[in-house]
């Protein structure tokens, strides 16, 4: 989470869990079972779905020479969602509904998958030009506009 602005990060308990998981992965190359149960306790079924996305290498970190980065997650339905690397944002409908509107979830499964892939160092990397990165950030907006 080195990119995050201070104060716009996860709740401390989640941060702590993720950094413990990162340490465990570095040591043993796998996540201990008790961490997995904590994850499931905090995030419910999203935890399993997020781990599944990580297993299937559905997360791509896109970066440009400028150093700006954005994540794309290939959802189980085959749609690609954009997740910002610096703060909580995912373009999926669950994020709009459960996180933003209802406030009954902390994250959607895609964002959780992004954080888990950072911990497990399993995300795919894609380098694009600065211009292409602009288009990736903007295209999302155009799709939204067409949908409405």
């Amino acid at each position: 989470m080195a990119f995050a602005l201070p104060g716009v990060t996860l709740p401390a308990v989640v941060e702590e869990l993720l950094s413990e998981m990162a340490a465990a992965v570095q040591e043993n190359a796998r996540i201990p079972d008790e961490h997995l149960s904590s994850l499931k306790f905090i995030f419910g079924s999203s935890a399993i779905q997020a781990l599944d996305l990580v297993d299937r290498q559905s997360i791509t970190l896109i970066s440009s020479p400028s150093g700006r980065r954005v994540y794309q997650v290939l959802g189980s339905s085959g749609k690609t969602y954009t997740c910002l690397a610096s703060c909580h944002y995912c373009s999926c409908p669950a994020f709009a509904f459960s996180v933003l509107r209802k406030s009954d979830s902390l994250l959607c499964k895609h964002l959780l998958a992004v954080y888990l892939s950072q911990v497990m160092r399993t995300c795919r990397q894609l380098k694009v030009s600065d211009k292409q990165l602009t288009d990736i950030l903007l295209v999302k907006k155009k799709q939204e506009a067409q949908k409405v």
Partner: protein
Amino acid sequence: MAEVLRRVLSLGSSAESEEENTAEAGPPLLLLGGPGSGKTALLFAAALEAAGEGRGPVLFLTRRPLQSLPRARGATLDPLRLQKIRFQYPPSTHELLQLLCSAHEARGPTPSLVLLDGLEEYLVEDWGPQEAAYLAALLLDTAAHFSHQIGPGQGCGLIVALQIREEGDSGDALQLSLLQRYFPAQCWLQVDAPGPRQRCLRACLDPGGLGPRAEWWVAFRPDGEMTITPWPAQAGNPSSDKGSSSEDQP
């Protein structure tokens, strides 16, 4: 980003805080107030303050050019500081999104502070929460990218001014709570006893869990000059405003 605003509000009253003028950007700050509550004047004062820090330029985004430069206090309105403020006027929401999405393509020195005045003008009416969240998230992402370019230890700050109605409907409340997710630090401006000769406002700064809340009186004289006194001291004491701190740079 409460630190720059705190310095603006504390000028002339707390010289001892100079030591704390670290370049740490702090959390993004939302500046909230009704129409005519002095948001633009405070934002501009924050721009001048940051421009005098000897760091990168200040990026000031607003839909239309300022009608006049707000009256600055003391010696702070010097041309060298003004030159470091880069005004950009995205005329529409689309243009603003375009500017934020392509911020990493811009050449030149990296801004040390990003300011946006009038966020409400860019929040399109038929937008759902996701679009508003995307705009807020992109503002944060842009500042985070600038922070990354500047390097560790010194971030790029972000202050966004939003006009709120006195009696907000439920849609406004939803939008505000959504924006507050992305802006942990907030500063509220409230009109306090409008007087015949000057407008008095109460500024309440909540730095987002990084310190205690603080309050100030902000008074605007008819000629536009702004005076700031710490709450609960009485406002309207012009002698408390000898805050010419342009010599405090190393």
